[in-house]
């Protein structure tokens, strides 16, 4: 589905991504973990075209999408949500999602017809239903709670019917209870939509409970990859990063 | 357009010297205004569109003080301090209320004050233009340098301005206050987290910017007639200067001001009817190629 080969990117002399090779199979649920500054978000940014890589290939199916613009990449079917919810504060929830649906269908520059286009409504309703925002459809996005804003951010990506969905710390900044609710929702989405889901996460309990495979990044390179059990017992991971979190997770 | 005349001028030493000094002089007064504008933008991230009005106030304050005391030093120092104080009050009472709104509200507050101050000047000092006259100390024949002519007052003016530029540079780079100002410019929340009173810093910077504009107005008073609305053209020019030099860069303001001074000075000979157009053309080109200005930091 998504294959990354020999990816390199440096910012002002600092190597943020330093030769990553990864493969994500269709329909899998992968967690990306790693200490702060490991290059997790940069990795997402490269895949989604926020920056062009200095070197390497990003294969989506068989196409190399490295260096394409974000809209181009998104249109091919890679959606993304952000660590800090990135939404449209002055639009209502419904308007926001309809906007995304319209963009997805290429109607966003239509002048002749009236917004919202009828056919889009149904899809917007479905997306809101999926993330559980139906009741808040007419609220201003900017007035939503933090958790709902994160959900809306994910809903935006979902509206694009992506084949690959990248979630950057979906549970960031939430209380313990909220976190589990959130990841539960995400997990259900993955099951229902049958897509490839890659998420960055710090909470190891969540990671080990939900991820099929885990990729560990450190200093812009892949430190380890494997099933949760393999990672749990991977000596390098324990040494470099997991030790404390592992203990805490146990305790 | 008269490119021939420009070439002829450029090939004669006396013409080059005289036009260059002429450009330097109008550039210097412009620098003082533009430096304040640039400083305020660099630190507060607001464009002080009423900066020209502060220049106007400086000139009128100097006029009143000079008429009352007959002492030019008192007039200049008093006017600069007075405008600085005005800047502080304006920042605390009005400008500080619109930092968190969008740029249009800032524009609006400034525009409101431009209108109010212009009318206030008309009410207080009258609608007719005023002239302060040259202080006796400077009423002496100009100096000749290599065929070029330099009036004594302008020599004084260049000296004062360069001194101020130097002081300003030292203040910003060598003193604790300067470091705080530069830190506050980069990251106001961090600075305030470190226990520094950003309100004080912002007020102080605005006062300093006002002081510079006031100083410029006061120094211009002996040679430029005063009238309500006189701040307008200087605002536009100093605006061009800051954009070209780079918003927030004092060095950029100096280079930009001299550049504009020279464009005008030589433009008068080569393309007298389009000097303003050339300035805007210059500004456009700089913005297109390097939006942050020749000496501004990219961000």
């Amino acid at each position, binding site marked *: 589905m998504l294959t990354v080969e020999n990816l390199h990117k440096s910012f002002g002399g600092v190597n943020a991504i330093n030769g990553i090779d990864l493969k994500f199979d269709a329909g899998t649920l992968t967690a990306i973990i790693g200490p702060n500054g490991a290059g997790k978000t940069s990795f997402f940014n490269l895949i989604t075209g926020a920056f062009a890589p200095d070197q390497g290939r990003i294969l989506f199916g068989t196409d190399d999408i490295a260096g394409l613009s974000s809209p181009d990449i998104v249109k091919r079917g890679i959606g993304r949500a952000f660590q800090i919810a990135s939404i449209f504060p002055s639009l209502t929830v419904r308007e926001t999602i309809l906007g995304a649906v319209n963009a997805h269908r290429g109607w966003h520059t239509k002048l002749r017809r009236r917004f919202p286009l009828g056919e889009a409504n149904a899809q917007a309703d479905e997306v809101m239903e999926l993330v559980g925002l139906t009741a808040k459809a007419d609220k201003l996005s900017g007035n939503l709670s933090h958790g709902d804003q994160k959900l809306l951010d994910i809903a935006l990506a979902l509206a694009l019917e992506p084949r690959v969905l990248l979630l950057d710390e979906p549970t960031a900044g939430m209380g313990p209870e909220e976190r589990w609710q959130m990841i539960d929702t995400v997990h259900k989405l993955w099951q229902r939509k049958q897509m490839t889901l890659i998420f960055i996460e710090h909470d190891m309990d969540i990671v080990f409970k939900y991820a099929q495979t885990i990729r560990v990044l450190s200093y812009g390179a892949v430190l380890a990859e494997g099933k949760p059990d393999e990672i749990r017992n991977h000596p390098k991971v324990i040494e470099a990063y997991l030790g404390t979190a592992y203990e805490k997770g146990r305790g | 357009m008269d490119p021939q*005349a420009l070439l002829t*001028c450029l090939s*004669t030493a*006396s*013409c080059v010297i*005289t*036009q260059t*000094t*002429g*450009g330097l*002089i*109008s550039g210097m*007064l412009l620098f003082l205004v533009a430096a304040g504008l640039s400083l305020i933008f660099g630190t507060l991230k607001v464009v002080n569109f009423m900066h020209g009005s502060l220049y106007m106030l400086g000139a009128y304050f100097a006029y009143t003080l000079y008429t009352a005391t007959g002492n030019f030093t008192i007039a200049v120092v008093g006017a600069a301090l007075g405008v600085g104080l005005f800047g502080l009050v304006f920042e605390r009472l009005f400008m500080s209320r619109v930092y968190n709104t969008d740029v249009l509200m800032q524009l609006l507050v400034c525009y409101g004050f431009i209108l109010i101050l*212009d*009318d206030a000047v*008309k*009410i*207080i*000092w*009258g*609608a*007719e*233009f*005023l*002239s*302060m*006259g*040259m202080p006796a100390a*400077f*009423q002496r*024949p*100009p100096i000749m340098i290599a065929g070029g*002519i330099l*009036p*004594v*007052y*302008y020599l004084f003016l260049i000296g004062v301005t360069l001194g101020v530029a130097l002081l300003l540079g030292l203040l910003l780079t060598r003193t604790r206050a300067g470091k705080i100002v530069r830190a506050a410019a980069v990251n106001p929340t961090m600075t305030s987290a470190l226990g520094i009173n950003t309100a004080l810093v912002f007020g102080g910077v605005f006062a300093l910017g006002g002081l510079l504009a006031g100083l410029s107005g006061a120094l*211009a008073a*002996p*040679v*430029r*007639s*005063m*009238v*309500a*609305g*006189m701040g307008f*053209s*200087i605002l536009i020019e100093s605006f061009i200067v800051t954009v070209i030099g780079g918003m927030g860069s004092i060095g950029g303001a100096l280079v930009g001001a001299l550049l504009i001074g020279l464009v*005008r*000075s030589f*433009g*008068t*000979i080569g393309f*007298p*009817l389009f*000097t*303003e157009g050339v300035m805007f053309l210059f500004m456009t080109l700089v913005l297109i190629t390097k939006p942050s200005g020749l000496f501004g930091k990219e961000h």
Partner: protein
Amino acid sequence: MTDTQRTRRNRRGFIKAAGALTASGLAFPYVARAQDKPIRIGVPTILSGRVAQLGISSRNALQIEVDKFNAAGGLNGRKLEIIARDSKGKPDEAANNTRQLINGDGCEIIISAESSAGAFAVQEVIRELKVLCIHTNSETSSLSADPKIRVPTAFRTARQGIHDAIVSAAYAGNVAKAKGLKTWMTCSPDYAYGRDNTSLFLEYMKRFHPEIEMVGEAWPKLFQADYTENITKILQAKPQALYSCLWAGDLVSFLDQSGIYNLFAQTTLFAINMADYTTLTAVKNLPAGIHSSSRYLKTFPAVPENAAWGDAYKAKFGDYPTNWSWENSLAMTFLTTALRKVNSTDGAKLADAIRGMKVKSPFGADGTVTMRAEDQTTIGYAIGWGTTISKEPYVPSVTPGDWKSILEHEAEWKKKMGFA
């Protein structure tokens, strides 16, 4: 008048105005017209910005004449009333204000105390609305000379550019010949008036004195603050004489800045707009020996009526009148004479009366001024040149222009321009 007096008066005016604003609310004013209502004269003019003083001095002059007319009983009991409106020096505002004054405030007559740009805009409104209009300040010749721009009900009592140019060139040429001023330069503001005035002056200089050599020109912008680069340019060219039509504050700045370069030690200045009290008094250490045209001087024409008028104005408003003042005063002379004659405010009737009218006036070269019928502009007003001294009477002796010669050359110029 002292500063405090002026402040107080302004403040009182302001409070009154604020009250009126509150009272009038935001409603459209509709004016019932009745025979006992005053005759309203709309005055689009410039009351704010850099030229405010001239607009105010125009309004003041009009007020004096209106008061005089009303005190004498008005027009069969109907009094005159001035409604001045600020165009802020913008032509579109001038046009809009003129329309409003006529259509909204019920003004039956317009006195357009606008500078040239505003006057042309007012002219277009008058073409459409056909009330009587007298332009009092625009000197641009084409306003009345060009038949395409001329309007049947619009007149001009301002001095006219072409007249000034002929007189100026004749005078300047004579001085040049007498003192051997061979090389000349110009320094005039770069806008319509500055360009027209200067090119006409040059044209007649060349015609009257072909031996004169032009060594350059400087074109500062209108309302420029700093003239240094122009002054240095003049210093480079070292002309023996300099012609300039800079005016008011710009001229003052130019003189102050030229002074510190000692420019006038080597160059004789011919500043057409110098001899207006507001300029003469503003310059500190006025250099002697500047040649200037008479804008307004109470000593020229040297008749008691003129001096009395200037003193009366000063007694009432604290300053001497300006060039714009007398031009407005003259307009009122034509207007009131015509009003009494036709006893109506109808634009066409008043225009018929004013066309070709000759009035007695303290501002006439021979005690009278004539509104020439063919192009509806005044001729025979006092115009001349003299040399400044640094204190009153500032220009002790004025050489009057020769109207016979002016009219001859003007006729020729019109033919050349295709206006006649």
